[in-house]
């Protein structure tokens, strides 16, 4: 369930709360997507599109954090031992209480 693909907002076509639409680009094609769930998405931002509607605005900072962590992982010659995992900050995520 849930094939959702990231695309870039190219142009807003309609800002109506129910009929809001924008042209979104995915690699080499654009498609008009329904934007009622992301009314504040800006041109140039990326959104995730599922079944023709944008369901979230991609948090570029969070994405970058994860990629940074992966690069760090990549550069480590020695990975931290498993027991340190519980306290290390390398996990990209918030924890709930």
């Amino acid at each position, binding site marked *: 369930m849930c094939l959702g693909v990231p695309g870039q907002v190219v142009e807003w076509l309609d800002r109506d709360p129910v009929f809001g639409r924008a042209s979104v680009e995915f690699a080499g094609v654009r498609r008009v997507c329904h934007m009622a769930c992301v009314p504040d998405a800006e041109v140039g931002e990326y959104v995730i599109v599922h079944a023709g509607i944008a369901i979230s605005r*991609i948090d570029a900072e969070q994405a970058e954090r994860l990629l940074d962590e992966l690069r760090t992982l*990549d550069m480590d010659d020695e990975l931290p031992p498993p027991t340190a995992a519980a306290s290390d900050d390398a996990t990209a995520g*918030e924890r709930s209480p």
Partner: protein
Amino acid sequence: MKYVDEFRDTRAARRLVDDIRRTATRRWVLMEVCGGQTHSLLRHGIEEELRETVELIHGPGCPVCVTPAEDIDFAQQLALREDVLLTSFGDMLRVPGTRESLLDVRAAGGQVRIVYSPLDAVALAQKHPDRQVVFFAVGFETTAPATALAVRQAEQLGLENFSLLVSHVRVQPAMESILRSPGNRVEGFLAAGHVCTITGFDSYVDFVREFRVPVVVTGFEPVDLLEGIRECVRQLESGRAEVTNCYARSVRREGNRHALVAVEQVYRIADVPWRGLGVIPSGGLRLRPEYARFDARRRFEDTGCEEELPVITTPDCPAAEVLAGRMRPSDCPQFGSRCTPDSPLGAPMVSSEGACAAYFRYRTPAVDASQPAGASQPEATR
């Protein structure tokens, strides 16, 4: 492709695999409940790669498999009506109902159109005022906002020829049902990242307290899946049971407010049957009374036969056991003999994302692999 390719990076994936192997001191049993995650895990060989470290159970996360056969039958009846144009996601076309699939019905003259989006079905209803356009609304909480939006648009446009056959399901009640059943082996969950994009993950706080199993919100690309698995293993190794978000670029704690409002407005939570699992309390959605006029079950009451809350199990198919991870597909006496993708006995063999269909593909030589259920002749490209 931005935000896709980076999360399919080989080096990052390999290092995560190594880290998971290094972290685990025993084999853990994890479950994912999302057909999209099943698909990605299989496609990239993650399950195979981590076989010694993690047992990954594919839970009932594929709406294609869990949509009741009776709903599919009803959709077929509608498609055969002269006045109806049935619209559906492509996924549903090959799935057999009680007897045949929507693809078979289309070949027999039923009016069935594939749409990529339920909003395209609304556009079709506008374009064809002489036809009754029905959209087969399957899917988890990820998809419900799209179908809710379709109803809202139809309402504002004053369309009299648009309706939904609602068969939406909710994933958390199914997870609870699995954990409560005797013989449950699941020790940690990968929560479906796009469901949580809509719902947020607050509702899992009480869940982890009650059941003492970690829940890790996980994405779909190989790196995302490995991140989620690694976090789950880390928690299990240190005896924690928390909710963690490993898909933060898409998921916020509060979910998507606009989407939730749209769903709240149009749908109510209901007890619904899941194919192979029986009725799951609060396991699905139905249209609110204010939107009853968009309910295809009401509009076409005279079509087919309706029973409230039928128990849908196929004799001889231990679907509940398999989907809950208590039985491996290969342990089922019918697996590969009476039950194959060509002639499925139950839900988990029905779609290529089903646990049994996935096992079938890997356990038999590919030259013998049968076509998935309900496959038809290749559609013409020449």
